[in-house]
C-alpha cells in the first residue's frame, strides 16, 4: 500500500491537538497542541461550554502550524481522522464539524477515531515501539482499564475500575491536600519528598483475584487521615502532606503494577503498554520497570508529550485503520457526522 498522509484532530476534552502522520514509512511529520488547562484552572475544573468555545478558536491556527512545520500542502492529505468519542459532546462536535467539512471539501474520506484507541496505540509513535500482541494499561483522568490488544481494532477488556479512574483519584486526593486543579502531577511531585510508610493506606482489590480496580475507597481513606490530623483545628504541615501524598501514591502504584503484570502473565504475553496521563507518573514507571524486568516483561510508554491528549495519536490510529483496510472498519465518506460522548471501547468494532 502506498504511503498515505493522514491528518488527525483531537478535541475531546481540554486539549486541541492537530497532527500529520505519513503511513508507509510510519512517520509523524508534525504535531501541534493547545492546552486549556490554564483557562479552566480558575474554575476548579473543566467547564464544558468554555472548552467548546476554545476548541473552535484553535483548530485553524494549529492546522496551519502543522502544515507549515511538515512542509506539506493540505491538498496532499489522503484522509482526515478525528476523535469521535468518548468525551465532552460539545467539544467533540467542534473537531468533528471542522474535520468533516475539511474532508468533504478536499474530497477525501474521514476516520472517526475512538479516543482510547488513540491512547493505547500511542506507544507505537516511539522509536522503539511494541509489536502486536500486547497488554495495555490505560490510566487517565477518565479511565483505568487493562486490555489485550492483538491488532488494530482488536481489543479485549481484561479489567477496569469499578468507580474512580486512577487520574481522578490523584486529582481528588490532590484537592483534599489543597494542591489545586488538576492536582495529579503536583501530588506526584509532593510524594517524592514524603517518607514511605509514614501513613498506612489500603490497597483496594489487590488480591481480588480479578483484574478490576477500585480507587474511591483510597480517596476516602485519605480523607479520614486528613480529618483525624486536623480534628482540633490544626492544619497539615508540609511534612504531613508529603507523607500522605507518598502513602497515596505508593498504594495506587502498587495496585496498578501488580494487576498490570498479572494481566500480562495471564495473557501469556511479554509486552505491556502503558498509556494515558497517569502513565507519566515517575514512581509508576520506576516500579513497573523494576518488577517487569524480573519477570522478563518489556514495558513500553508513549513519549511524554503523547501521554496526555494529543492529535498525533489520533492521526496514528486513523492511519493504522486505513492501512489495515478491510480488516479494520474502513474510512467513511466525509459528510454526515455524529459524536459519541459515551462510547465503551469494548463496543469498538475491528
Amino acid at each position, binding site marked *: 500500500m502506498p504511503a498515505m498522509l493522514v491528518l488527525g484532530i483531537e478535541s475531546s476534552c481540554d486539549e486541541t491537538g492537530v497532527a500529520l502522520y505519513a503511513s508507509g514509512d510510519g512517520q509523524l511529520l508534525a504535531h501541534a497542541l493547545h492546552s486549556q488547562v490554564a483557562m479552566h484552572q480558575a474554575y476548579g475544573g473543566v467547564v464544558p461550554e468554555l472548552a467548546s468555545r476554545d476548541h473552535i*478558536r484553535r483548530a485553524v491556527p494549529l492546522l*496551519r502550524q502543522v502544515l507549515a512545520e511538515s512542509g506539506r500542502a493540505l491538498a496532499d492529505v489522503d484522509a482526515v481522522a478525528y476523535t469521535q468519542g468518548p468525551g465532552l459532546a460539545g467539544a467533540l462536535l467542534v473537531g468533528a464539524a471542522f474535520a468533516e467539512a*475539511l474532508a468533504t471539501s478536499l474530497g477525501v474520506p474521514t476516520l472517526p477515531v475512538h479516543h482510547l484507541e488513540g491512547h493505547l496505540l500511542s506507544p507505537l509513535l516511539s522509536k522503539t515501539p511494541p509489536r502486536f500482541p500486547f497488554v495495555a494499561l490505560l490510566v487517565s483522568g477518565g479511565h483505568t482499564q487493562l486490555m489485550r490488544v492483538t491488532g488494530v481494532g482488536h481489543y479485549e477488556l481484561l479489567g477496569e475500575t469499578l468507580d474512580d479512574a486512577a487520574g481522578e483519584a490523584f486529582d481528588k486526593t490532590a484537592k483534599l491536600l489543597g494542591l489545586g486543579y488538576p492536582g495529579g502531577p503536583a501530588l506526584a511531585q509532593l510524594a517524592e519528598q514524603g517518607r514511605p510508610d509514614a501513613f498506612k493506606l489500603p490497597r483496594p482489590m489487590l488480591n481480588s483475584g480479578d483484574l478490576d480496580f477500585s480507587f474511591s475507597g483510597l480517596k476516602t481513606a485519605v480523607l479520614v487521615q486528613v480529618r483525624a490530623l486536623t480534628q482540633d483545628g490544626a492544619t497539615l504541615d508540609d511534612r504531613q502532606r508529603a507523607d500522605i501524598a507518598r502513602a497515596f501514591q505508593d498504594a495506587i502504584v502498587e495496585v496498578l503494577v501488580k494487576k498490570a503484570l498479572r494481566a500480562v502473565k495471564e495473557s501469556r504475553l511479554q509486552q505491556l503498554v502503558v498509556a494515558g496521563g497517569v502513565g507519566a507518573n515517575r514512581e509508576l514507571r520506576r516500579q513497573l520497570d523494576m518488577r517487569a524486568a524480573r519477570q522478563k516483561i518489556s514495558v513500553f510508554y508513549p513519549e511524554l508529550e503523547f501521554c496526555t491528549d494529543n492529535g498525533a495519536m489520533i492521526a496514528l490510529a486513523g492511519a493504522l485503520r486505513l492501512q489495515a483496510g478491510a480488516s479494520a472498519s474502513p474510512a467513511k465518506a466525509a459528510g454526515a457526522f455524529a459524536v459519541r460522548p459515551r462510547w465503551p471501547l469494548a463496543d469498538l468494532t475491528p
Partner: protein
Amino acid sequence: MPAINLLAIETSTDAGSIALWRDGEVLLRDCPRGVSHSETLLPLIRSTLAEAGLGFADLSGIAFGAGPGSFTGLRVACGVAQGLAFAHDTPLLPVGTLEAMALAAGGGRVLVALDARMGEVYLGSFEVSSDAVVALGPVGVHPPGAVPLPASGGWLACGNGLAAYPALRERLAPAVDAWLPELMPTADAAARLAAPRLARGERVDPADAVPVYVRDKVAQTVAERLAQGGKA
C-alpha cells in the same frame, strides 16, 4: 466578471437551512427537521452544489449565521464553514443572525427577538433599507419583561421570542406597528446580507471566525463561588 457563487449556512436554531446565491438568484434548502444538523448539513450542501453543477473550489464565498442562537448550532455552522473555507482558501463571512432576520423581515426599523431559552431573549434593533442593514445598538440578552424599550414608535417586531414570551409582546406593544413572530433565521437572508460584502472584498480569516454567543457568562470561577459563600 466571473460569476459569484456564495454558499450560506444557517443553523442558529433547530430550523437550519443552507442557501446558494448565484449572481442574485438564491437557491434555499431546509435541513430535514427532527435530525441533528451534524447529520444533515454537509450532505445537503454537497447535493445542493451538485444540483447547481458546482464543486467546492467553485465557491467564491462562504457565509454563516454567527449568532446569537443555540451554542451547539452556532459551532456546527462555524466549524463547518471554517473547514470548507480553509480547504480552498475561500473567503469567509460571518453574518449576524438577528441582522439577517431583520433583512428578511422587510424594510424600516426592525426589532428582532430570538428565544434565548432559560427565560431570556436575544434582542437587536436594526434599520433596514434595500440590501443594507444598520445595527442601531449592540445585540443583548434580556429577561422578556426587562428588554430596553425603543424611544419612538413605528417598529416592526419579528422572531420567535415574541411567540415564546407574551410579556415581551406586552412590553413592546406601544412601540410596535407590525408583528412577525413566526420569522426565523434562514440561510437565504444570510446570503443576501453577505453577497454585497463579498463583492466589496470583505472576508475574515477562518482562524478569526468565531460564533457570537452574546450570552458570555457561562460559569463561575472558584473565586466568585467563594465570594458568594459557596464551595471551591
